């Protein structure tokens, strides 16, 4: 069964540094998402991406964050000037259609640790 793959599985970064989290969505999917889960808290929506542009974003997704689909297979989340509170599991997801028609499929996440 096709999977969403995320790299790296664990990223350790010094506070203030930039980090790029990478995702390869399922190949025929059109909608892409980033979520995060701070330890002990719920999974929170960050951003959705469709047709090469952001379609929705949450309050969390401020100017520190950006997303890009640099080629036909990768979907990246960039966090500039990381802060301690950015430490979390970051999940990428994709779907073939809007959620009400097809569910989102999640990758196994990247654990981001900010020191």
């Amino acid at each position, binding site marked *: 069964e096709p999977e969403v793959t995320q790299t790296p599985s664990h990223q350790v970064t010094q506070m203030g540094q930039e980090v790029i989290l990478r995702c390869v969505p399922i190949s025929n999917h059109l909608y892409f998402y980033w979520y995060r889960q701070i330890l002990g808290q719920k*999974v929170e929506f960050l951003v*959705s991406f469709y047709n090469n542009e952001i379609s929705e974003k949450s309050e969390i997704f401020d100017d520190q964050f950006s997303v890009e689909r640099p080629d036909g297979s990768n979907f990246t989340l960039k966090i500039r000037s990381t802060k301690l509170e950015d430490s979390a599991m970051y999940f990428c*997801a994709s779907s073939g259609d809007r959620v009400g028609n097809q569910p989102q499929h999640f990758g196994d996440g990247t654990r981001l640790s900010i020191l």
Partner: protein
Amino acid sequence: DQQVKQNSPSLSVQEGRISILNCDYTNSMFDYFLWYKKYPAEGPTFLISISSIKDKNEDGRFTVFLNKSAKHLSLHIVPSQPGDSAVYFCAVLQTGANNLFFGTGTRLTVIP
């Protein structure tokens, strides 16, 4: 943000018995509901969904019930198996949106 609540952080059930996981929501604009299962070190895996025009959806051992008037949904697993032991999240979708609101999760342990 308490729009989606799973009030039971954990549940233990004997193998073969029924597991019932509950989820409450506050926003009447939510119109699509999903359950995800999550194992440690893995991402959430989609289980089953239901739209607001239905009150029940069944897929094998998994059944989701929706009570719109009570703003409550539940996931029934019967019979429960040890491999069902995981954290279960309910997730909801608001009309016109394409992002999910997740509950805090319920850790299910199925005892052999």
